[in-house]
């Protein structure tokens, strides 16, 4: 009985839990409650993923109203894996949370923090699962507004400016999405995505639909932080509280990427997007510029959080590149990288959270000799770095492998494959800067003295970081799970599944 209603439980449970957090107030109780909700969500997401993998796409009618009139939730393997990423990262990050929050956020604001966190998770899950395009806008705003709040809670006053700038750009993005939805509705008279896809066939040559698609693409690109529209991202990631950075870096841009895939492949369709609108001609150069410019900028950063934020912009470039191939191999590579990058960036930002907890800074200067002071965390950071480069036996390698294979599949894209391999060298450069500081430079004597007085990083923080980092290694050695899910997801997206 209850298993039929899992899709709605995925959304309603965290949504209702958020106001309950505000009522509970007592910070330890709120944390325990939020933790329980997140793990329950993770369980639901896992059950849903298994079901869509076995039985194919799943449609849930809200309140029993049939599709074009009522709102439906629709889930395919791609949605399933994104739900798993969002709820899984949220669950791990909340395990990590309590000690680091004590340090970064005033104790009397914790309950509000957890409420905003749950709302943000609800929004991201909602975008993923819904089959109604206006619902996407609503959930997008739920997740964005709560993300602005979460970022503004950073200890540095620049967090406020970062949140303000994100708010302005994010609102422009979502307003563009709203315009796009309106124009598409004008021509088709429907908001249901499947229905929209069916009716667009008759009107896809009108200027209104092209404008709708353009607005939607630009709006989603802002949320995705695609290269020239990424300016909100570095500051937001740098100044947000550690666990917020880890959560958003692992989930928010991934969900936007999912939304792009969903809109292009299941709503507007490949003929309109890639043959008429020639989206690849716009996105491929932007993606390559994202990879090269952002990687180069990353090399010159002095704050490690900021360095990794720019690395994120570059990794989004890889995602968009894979999407631009518009082939089954390309979409498979995109989904694999989506999953792997969520894990590796989540792990790296959590490791940085541990570092910030212990030494109160993430500037390269202050990380000198950290390999000796915090050997385990430093090792985890190195593994994360190897992932970013794409060294064999890490999940990053699997991503790069499928990306290059997808590029080589289409003859004319071989320079893209070469560029991709070359860009890995830039990743080597920025990862090497961190490794060099961690291991090659001696720790300052004053730091070693203070180490003896201070308590070590608690297990509640080390454990989630370790789980995520080792996850990337396991998925690098046994990639069957990700690859299988990604292949199924690509099949459903491109409509070739039996």
């Amino acid at each position: 009985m209850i298993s039929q209603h899992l899709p709605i439980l995925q959304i309603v449970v965290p949504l209702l839990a958020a106001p309950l957090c505000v009522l509970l107030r007592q910070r330890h109780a709120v944390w325990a409650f939020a933790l329980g909700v997140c793990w329950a969500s993770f369980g639901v997401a896992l059950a849903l993923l298994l079901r869509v993998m076995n039985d194919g796409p799943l449609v849930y009618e809200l309140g029993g109203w049939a599709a074009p009139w009522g709102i439906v939730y629709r889930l395919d393997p791609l949605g399933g894996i994104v739900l798993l990423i969002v709820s899984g990262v949220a669950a791990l990050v909340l395990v990590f949370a309590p000690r680091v929050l004590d340090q970064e956020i005033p104790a009397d604001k914790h309950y509000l923090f957890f409420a905003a966190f749950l709302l943000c998770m609800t929004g991201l899950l909602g975008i993923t699962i819904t089959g109604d395009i206006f619902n996407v806008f609503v959930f997008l705003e739920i997740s964005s507004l709560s993300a602005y709040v979460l970022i503004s809670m950073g200890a540095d006053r620049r967090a406020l400016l970062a949140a303000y700038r994100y708010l302005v750009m994010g609102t422009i993005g979502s307003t563009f999405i709203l315009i796009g939805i309106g124009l598409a509705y004008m021509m088709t008279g429907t908001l249901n995505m499947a229905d929209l896809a069916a009716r667009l066939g008759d009107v896809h040559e009108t200027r209104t639909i092209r404008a709708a698609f353009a607005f939607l693409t630009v709006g989603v690109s802002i949320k995705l932080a695609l290269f020239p529209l990424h300016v909100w991202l570095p500051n937001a990631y740098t100044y947000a509280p550690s666990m917020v950075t880890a959560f958003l870096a692992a989930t928010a841009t991934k969900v936007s990427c999912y939304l792009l895939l969903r809109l292009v492949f299941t709503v507007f369709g490949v003929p309109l997007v890639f043959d008429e609108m020639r989206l690849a001609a716009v996105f491929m150069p932007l993606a390559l510029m994202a990879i090269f410019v952002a990687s180069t900028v990353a090399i010159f950063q002095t704050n490690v959080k900021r360095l990794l934020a720019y690395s994120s912009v570059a990794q989004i470039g890889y995602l968009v590149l894979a999407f631009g191939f518009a082939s089954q191999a390309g979409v498979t590579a995109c989904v694999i990288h989506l999953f792997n990058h969520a894990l590796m960036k989540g792990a790296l930002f959590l490791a940085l959270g541990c570092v910030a907890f212990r030494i109160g800074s993430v500037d390269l200067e202050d990380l000198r000799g950290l390999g000796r002071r915090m050997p385990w965390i430093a090792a985890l950071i190195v593994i994360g770095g190897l992932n970013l480069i794409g060294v064999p036996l890490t999940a990053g390698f699997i991503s790069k492998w499928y990306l290059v294979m997808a590029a080589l599949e289409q003859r004319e894209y071989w320079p893209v494959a070469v560029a991709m391999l070359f860009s890995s060298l830039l990743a080597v450069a920025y990862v090497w800067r961190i490794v060099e500081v961690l291991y090659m430079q001696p720790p300052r004597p004053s730091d070693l003295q203070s180490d003896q007085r201070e308590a070590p990083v608690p297990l509640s923080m080390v454990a989630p970081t370790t789980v995520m980092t080792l996850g990337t290694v396991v998925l690098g050695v046994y990639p069957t799970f990700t690859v299988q899910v990604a292949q199924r997801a690509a099949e459903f997206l491109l409509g070739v599944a039996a």
Partner: protein
Amino acid sequence: MLSPGLYNYWIVVVLMMAGFYTLISRGNLVKKLIGLNIFQVSVFMLYISMGKVQGGVAPILIGEMPAHGHAATHAAHDIDSSHDLHHDVHAKESPPRHPNESEGVLSDVLPQIDASPSLSPAAVQLAELQKTGDATIVYSNPLPHVLILTAIVVGVATTALGLALVVRINEQYGTIEEDEIHVMDPEQP
């Protein structure tokens, strides 16, 4: 190009660009938010315009329940161009009962519904159309209006949050001018 039917959409474009330009060109954080608001409001107008059907009435079912005509009249009252038609109805059918119906509260009207069935404008339109042999009623599309109510709520939330952030920024920096803030915290590349 400049046909009167597109008048609303031209206003939308002008408002949108005015808001967007304000957002980009002003250095004052509150003025930026005002620009953002105008930008959003233009989209509200876009949605409201697209739902309006010329000569359309509020979409209320009248076929089965003529007895509830009054309530329907009430709801349709302020919405669109059925206004004139509506007053005609009252002039012809029920002027003595409540000439100021539009200002009356619902409780004043409700008891009279059963006692005095009168026709809504849509019903009148239906009757007229049936005389001419065409039995369709033109409704305005309510869905975009409902959608935009949601978007307006979102817009209010965004503005509130933006202003709250500006208040906090003012507390921390003592100014809300962008260039003065950049002097205090130089922008990193």
